[in-house]
């Protein structure tokens, strides 16, 4: 197991370098990194040259990348457009997005798995068909449309919630945005659980459990769920990375000042440091989440052994 972890960590390095380099290049294409630094007007050539030298922008891109990564690993993510340290922005933005993600994951676990179990055990019945159609609709409607519609209905028409989230973004204000963020994954979790349950329900070991004279609830919780949820748990684990990266749309709709908002601002103001910094952290989260999922697999399924 230990050797496996080390090997996986080593494998992560080229992927991490590749992904951050790709982002670095994209951001460099994005435009003039110093354009935002002279206020509203364009910098005059002399100042521009001086600034370029100061930030090492006159060097080749690969050197800039190395310098940047060197700084990142000492905890220096550079400066944002308003002179704030990028790390400071992160300290305010990440807790918000993490709260949002936690709520989304909770929705996936509670609602998604419950719906999946119910439909999986009642395959072909009206409940099953209804939920399946609903999941299909949720998957088909883009998140931003779902978000806008729910905001319209719950926030504007019925007034159940505040249509936009305050800057502190406490848990209770994030419930609806969390649901919106989770919506597509929620539909997947439902379908995945349903398929998994329906498949395993006919399995030999479930038949054995019934033949042993176990009560129905024990057959379901201990024998059927335990195995059926393995792919679901790993899906949800891997989803953490996706949700944090995809939160930008939800944050835009509900005006949440999280990671997506900061990146969006960074792009608007052409601030490379902010964009690269945040995306680097997101890539790391994605890679670590996937590693954890792989290890989780081994914990959940004793048949898997890492050599």
């Amino acid at each position, binding site marked *: 197991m230990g050797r496996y972890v080390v090997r996986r960590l080593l494998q992560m390095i080229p992927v991490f370098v590749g992904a951050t380099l790709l*982002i670095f290049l*994209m951001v460099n294409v994005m435009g003039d990194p110093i354009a935002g630094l002279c206020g509203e007007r364009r910098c005059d050539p002399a100042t521009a040259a001086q600034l370029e030298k100061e930030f090492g922008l006159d060097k080749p891109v690969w050197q800039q990348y190395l310098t940047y990564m060197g700084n990142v690993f000492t905890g220096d993510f550079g400066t944002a457009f308003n002179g704030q340290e990028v790390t400071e922005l992160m300290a305010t933005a990440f807790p918000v997005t993490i709260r949002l993600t936690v709520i989304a994951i909770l929705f996936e676990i509670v609602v998604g798995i419950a719906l999946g179990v119910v439909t999986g055990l009642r*395959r072909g019945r009206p409940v099953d068909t209804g939920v399946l159609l609903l999941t299909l609709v949720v998957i088909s409607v883009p998140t931003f449309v779902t978000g806008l519609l729910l905001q319209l209905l719950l926030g504007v028409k019925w007034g159940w919630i505040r249509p936009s989230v305050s800057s502190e973004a406490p848990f209770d204000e994030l419930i609806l945005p969390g649901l919106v963020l989770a919506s597509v994954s929620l539909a997947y979790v439902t379908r995945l659980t349903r398929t998994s349950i329906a498949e395993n329900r006919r399995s030999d070991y479930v038949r054995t459990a019934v033949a042993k004279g176990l009560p129905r609830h024990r057959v379901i919780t201990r024998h059927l769920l335990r195995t059926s949820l393995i792919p679901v748990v790993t899906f949800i684990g891997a989803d953490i990375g996706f949700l944090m990266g995809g939160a930008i749309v939800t944050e835009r709709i509900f005006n949440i000042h999280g990671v997506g908002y900061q990146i969006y601002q960074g792009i608007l103001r052409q601030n490379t440091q902010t964009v690269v910094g945040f995306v680097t952290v997101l890539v790391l989260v994605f890679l670590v989440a996937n590693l954890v999922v792989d290890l989780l697999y081994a914990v959940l399924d004793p048949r898997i052994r890492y050599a």
Partner: protein
Amino acid sequence: MPEQHFDPDRAIAGTGMGGTMDLGVDEAESLEKAPGGPEGTGPQGRPRSLWSDAWRDLRRNPVFVVSALVILFLVVISLWPSLITSGSPLTCDLAKAQEGSQPGHPFGFNGQGCDVYTRTVYGARTSVAVGVLATLGVAVLGSVLGALAGFFGGVGDSVLSRITDVFFAIPVVLGGLVLLSVITSNTVWPVIGFIVLLGWPQLSRIARGSVITAKQNDYVQAARALGASPSRLMLRHIAPNAIAPVIVVATIALGTYISLEATLSYLGVGLKPPSVSWGIDISAASPYIRNAPHALLWPSGALAVTVLAFIMLGDAVRDALDPKLR
């Protein structure tokens, strides 16, 4: 090392979770348990191919028929929008802004006083163009690279696998924001290019996997033992069997690419006005959501139905091509 069991690029494309995504039409699961099922005594006619069997199934599947008709309709109106509307999407009258449904203008007017019906009809063109062209690009690039890697293996295969890992690690919408924010060209091409750039790894993975599976089939091994050349093996024996999953995933991906284009346009980096796109219209309508929700609902509905049609079509094709369900 375990294979990942999730579909890494759901954000772009992929509803291919865990195999069956059937629509609740329950297969007779009992057949194998009910002894003496039809297979023992079935008609011993000439063997039909997977494709003709699938086509026979599809024609009788109402889900397929309905979604195919919707798609056909969309393609027709995106080629000839004037068939069902006489207006122009760019003729707007601010005096009529936010007005509701009225004769000749069934969907009412949006915040700029443009006719929502006409704009919704013309919006189909963008979505269909982006969906079809991006899918073509992704399918060609992804399946060729994936098939080559799967067929020849070796260093090229490992390198390709690492490259796809890199692309999977980048959040799609963020990538789109960064890359498309600098582009000033207001055509569908940058969006299509971006989708192809980030979408090909998914299809290359599918193609690689199915080529490797097909390669291990006994008849392919036999053909190889009989001295068939690599190109003959690939084209004649492997490709016909490996292409089914690629087609299924590409069909479903097409729907999600349409959704992605709308999302990027909503965020302001896809297409920009005066282009006509459902994403732009939804974005433009969202500030007026209180007074003129119709301007938001119609393009949203059109978008949802379009994406749904492609996803259901892909689902139906998957069911028809999946021999396990037979």
